[in-house]
């Protein structure tokens, strides 16, 4: 069937709400408004305001309430409108969701799912455009998912809800309108394995989320130049599926990491470090990183475009890796 990323997410929410009475959705404008990005449009009519629960602008309050409800035996899905707003709830995410299982000696697990929008590309400027999923992936106790494809938009939520521990799902804002074909019986998918989205032998392009399709476009362009690029979609930033990355790098001997986060202290730095730790002698060239410029994301279109990785940047990074052999 033809669908969009947004509709696939909504189908996943609807299925979860139908499957388990313990599941409810809570967040700002998820109900009457239909979701800041219209993901939950229509759900309040079907499931009512108790289960599609509009929350006041109290990120720490309602994320913490999600943690408490999870401790109390429910399976809450908390929506935070954008990752920038999640910083207001960082205390609850870090100090409670990620920590209570450990602090309690394993007595209390927190089966909570938090969904939020991430990323630039929509001229929303510096307080609505950042890619902070790499920060959250720093924290032991969390799982961090970055669905990029329709299959993952449709299938990751169910697996996240079945997880006994907190799972964060980052939805790149530019993906919601993405259209495509999705199998009628599409369902739950794993949340701990990277996927090779394009096989290739000359260079491994490692990415996730919003930059996956830019990277695939870059691979097409590189093919025209005779460079056969492999594209790996990490799918999850915590845990990182390094075996899939390392296996690829051992074949291609070159790695380019494409990440919309900033370069300094980032998930791209982590992946680069692990490649050098685990596959140093297999590399024919230094690892290349294509990241966002170290500026708050600007409003003006030409500056925003210049700030975040584009197809041409990925192509240039791959050329550098291949040429540096």
């Amino acid at each position, binding site marked *: 069937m033809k669908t969009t990323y947004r509709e696939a997410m909504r189908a996943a929410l609807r299925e979860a709400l139908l499957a388990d009475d313990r599941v409810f959705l809570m967040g700002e404008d998820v109900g009457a408004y239909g979701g800041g990005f219209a993901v939950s449009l229509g759900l309040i009519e079907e499931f009512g305001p108790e289960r599609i629960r509009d929350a006041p602008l109290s990120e720490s309050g*309602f994320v913490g309430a999600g943690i*408490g409800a*999870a401790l*109390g035996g429910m399976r809450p899905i908390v929506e935070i409108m954008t990752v920038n707003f999640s910083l207001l709830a960082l205390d609850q995410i870090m100090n409670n969701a990620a920590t209570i299982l450990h602090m*309690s*000696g*394993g007595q209390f697990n927190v089966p909570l799912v938090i969904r939020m929008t991430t990323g630039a590309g929509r001229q929303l400027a510096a307080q609505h455009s950042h890619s902070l999923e790499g920060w959250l992936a720093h924290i032991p106790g969390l799982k961090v998912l970055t669905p990029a494809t329709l299959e993952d938009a449709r299938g990751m939520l169910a697996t996240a809800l079945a997880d*006994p521990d907190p799972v964060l799902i980052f939805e790149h804002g530019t993906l919601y309108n993405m259209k495509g074909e999705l199998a009628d019986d599409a369902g739950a998918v794993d949340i701990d394995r990277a996927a090779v989205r394009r096989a290739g032998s000359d260079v491994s392009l490692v990415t996730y989320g919003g930059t996956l399709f830019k990277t695939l476009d870059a691979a097409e362009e590189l093919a025209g130049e005779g460079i056969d690029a492999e594209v790996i979609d990490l799918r999850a930033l915590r845990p990182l599926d390094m075996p899939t990355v390392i296996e690829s790098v051992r074949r291609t001997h070159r790695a380019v990491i494409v990440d919309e986060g900033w370069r300094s202290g980032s998930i791209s730095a982590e992946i680069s470090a692990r490649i050098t730790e685990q596959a140093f002698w297999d590399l024919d060239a230094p690892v290349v990183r294509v990241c966002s410029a170290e500026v708050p994301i600007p409003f003006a279109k030409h500056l925003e475009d210049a700030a975040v990785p584009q197809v041409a940047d990925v192509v240039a990074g791959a050329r550098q890796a291949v040429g540096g052999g």
Partner: protein
Amino acid sequence: MTDEMASGGDLDLLREMLRIRRFEERCVELYSATKIRGFLHLYIGEEAVAVGVLSALGPADAVVATYREHGHALARGIPAAAIMAEMFGRIDGCSGGRGGSMHLFDAVTRFYGGNAIVAGGLPVAVGLALADHLRGEDTVTACFFGEGAVAEGEFHESINLAALWDLPVLFCCENNLYAMGTAVARSESETNMARKAAAYGVDATPVDGMDVGAVVDAATAAVAAIRRGDGPQFLELHTYRFRAHSMYDPDRYRDKAEVEEWKHRDPILLLTRRLRADGSLDDHHLEALEAEVAAEIDEAVAFADASGLEPVEDLTRHVHSEAVPR
């Protein structure tokens, strides 16, 4: 009279307050002996609050407390031995030695910590109450926090959510007048905490937190109101911490005379005096009670001392769940 000693409301309250007092006095000795390390926040002086409020809860109710929670853990029924072992960082501690003094947890008594981020427990308490509300259960979540938490945004977010959604939360503000070393008048433009709660449409009651009987009465009424469906309730419990904030605190910010003045209102002293006056307690029985408490604490210390350490190989356990409790 010995038979009456064994049980009975006031004597149980006295016993519980003595357990907390003597337990913590022993903790101070054990801290000096380096058996206990890290932070140690004593509740001495405030015992009537935890004992009074928790006497009003049933076993299915939930409790969320702060980093000054030894008293709440004891009064809630977590065995003293498991608490002491936790203070020692031992494997038989109520949090397996992973939490320590500030993070006592217990699934059996629905004791959800031990939260060391001021006000961080309030949203969690709201969520526990939300879960009970969604399931149609009539349980109550009691949430303890100091008056310092009232300056945090999480207090305001949480009390708004609880009132907006009519959730069964008993907010217990332990107003001991100091947020660490900052006197309430130096941190709050409005020093009447009950008025702040009332601004959210929550029934708010000031309580003499040094009078355990008054605390029991107020908490019992508040819990009944919540179970009746009257929505969240707020108690402002006026109390005082006799000891420093923690073992690291030189206590420079308050007058010694002020501390001595409050000791005249020691909750154990007040109750003992009343029970002696009405003839339900004498020296002999008080000694017997003290001996009973001392024996329990001796056993707790022996248990903690004998408890092993978690193997270092297990360091990374409990970062993720080991089994899926569906």
